[in-house]
């Protein structure tokens, strides 16, 4: 059946491979020629030399029944704020979510492609990929982005999934070459990642209840925003708060904004008192 592009002869269940082979123009990133022609300054040592909006502090931590993933809302462009309400935490499928740090455009594109990838596999094969399989696939996509990294367009994901076989939440971090590393308790990435990690290290215990884990996560974001210009804290005037999602055996749920706001109000009241 070679009659139309509808029957494009393709084997395999990966949407990413399908795009690469049959629709390279839709693949994320620039193609080889565009990369050669692009005269962008390559200076990995000095972030901010290329004017692309950069997403900033995102974190994940485990709790008793799964994992929580959260992120701030600020995107910056050099010393300017590019967006105050950007969403950095994405629902990927019923049991996983990813958060991103790096250049906003390619980050969002990767999240969208990863969502399609997993859904595509599930529909073609009739079963979901395993939690580990999903994490590995994301690693391959990060690796495919490596040429873009040399143009300064880094995409750094943080991935959480609920492993239905092991019955626990899992956290995966990556490096720019697509290396995949599993974290046992919590992790944070982005320009404020270190500050968030410091907070979580002090307050994290294993087997936290959902409410307490959420409080620790938001506190870490709050402290990161205190220390890092690229991370947005709670914006009380505009009513903009970090977003969080919870992944458990019941699937993925958004933490309602009211709940996040209430937790921040308590934290702020405590800080005023001390």
């Amino acid at each position, binding site marked *: *059946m070679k009659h139309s592009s509808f029957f494009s002869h393709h084997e395999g269940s990966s949407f990413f491979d399908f795009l690469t082979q049959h*629709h390279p123009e839709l693949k994320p990133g620039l193609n080889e020629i565009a990369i050669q022609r692009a005269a962008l300054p390559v200076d990995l040592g000095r972030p901010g030399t290329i004017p692309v909006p950069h997403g900033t502090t995102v974190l994940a931590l485990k709790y008793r029944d799964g994992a929580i993933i959260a992120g701030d809302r600020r995107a910056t462009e050099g010393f300017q704020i590019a967006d105050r309400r950007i969403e950095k935490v994405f629902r990927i499928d019923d049991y996983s979510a990813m958060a991103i740090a790096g250049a906003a455009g390619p980050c969002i594109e990767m999240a969208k492609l990863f969502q399609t990838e997993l859904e595509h596999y599930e529909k073609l094969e009739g079963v979901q990929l395993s939690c580990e399989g999903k994490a590995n696939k994301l690693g391959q996509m990060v690796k495919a982005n490596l040429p873009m990294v040399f143009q300064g367009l880094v995409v750094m994901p943080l991935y959480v999934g609920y492993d239905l076989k092991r019955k626990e939440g899992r956290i995966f971090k990556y490096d720019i070459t697509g290396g995949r590393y599993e974290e046992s308790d919590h992790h944070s990435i982005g320009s404020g990642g270190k500050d968030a990690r410091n907070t979580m290290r002090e307050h994290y215990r294993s087997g936290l209840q959902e409410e307490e884990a959420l409080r620790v996560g938001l506190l870490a974001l709050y402290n990161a925003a205190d220390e890092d210009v690229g991370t947005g804290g709670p914006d009380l005037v505009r009513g903009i708060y970090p977003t969080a999602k919870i992944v458990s055996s019941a699937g993925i749920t958004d933490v309602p904004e009211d709940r996040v706001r209430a937790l921040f109000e308590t934290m702020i009241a405590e800080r005023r008192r001390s």
Partner: protein
Amino acid sequence: MPLPYYVSPEQMMQDKAEYAKKGIAKGRSIIALEYVDGILLAADNPSSSLHKVSEVYDRIAFAGAGKYSEFEHLRKAGIRHADLTGYMYSREDVSARTLSNAYSQSLGTAFSTDVKPLEVEILVVQVGMNGQANEIFRISFDGSIVDEKSLAVIGGRSEAVQQYLREHATPQPPSLKDGLRRCLAALEQVATQKIPSENLEVAVLDRNRLGRKFRRLSSADISQLFA
């Protein structure tokens, strides 16, 4: 020099159509029936892993009758087409009508140019949201496409099954339970034997679900409905 045999185009098409029809009639039937919350798909299928009914996109499902390898190929092509459209444009831009047209074009071309026609008949169904009507498209081996109302049957002795369902139709769409019972009765009447619930492949497009509307009913779900 020996001359190639001459076969008139009419004769060739007729032979091909007969061949394809024979292949499709050998199998068992699949029903798409409107029920109160959307569209119900029921197939007499003894295998629990080789599916005849599948999800394509948010509101769209696929059912194939005839030769497994051929409709499986069509199913995968449809999913690729849908996912590509949704990725390129937006999720709401994926429609059963566009997909059915693509199927119709491809099947039509294959029927007229390939030596062996595809022995398949497929259904592309879409559940209507926000008061819009459901869409049920039946596409045959030669690419002909029919916009069916309220129900459609493909594969096996499809006309007999369809006749039974039309005779027992109610003015209002049935509940899931009643709809499924009616489908089972129709399949059993034509098969002239009892069909155990584990041999029934059932899926629904339920407009009340959040996000993706497709849901496969497990054999436990089915026995619960019949209880």
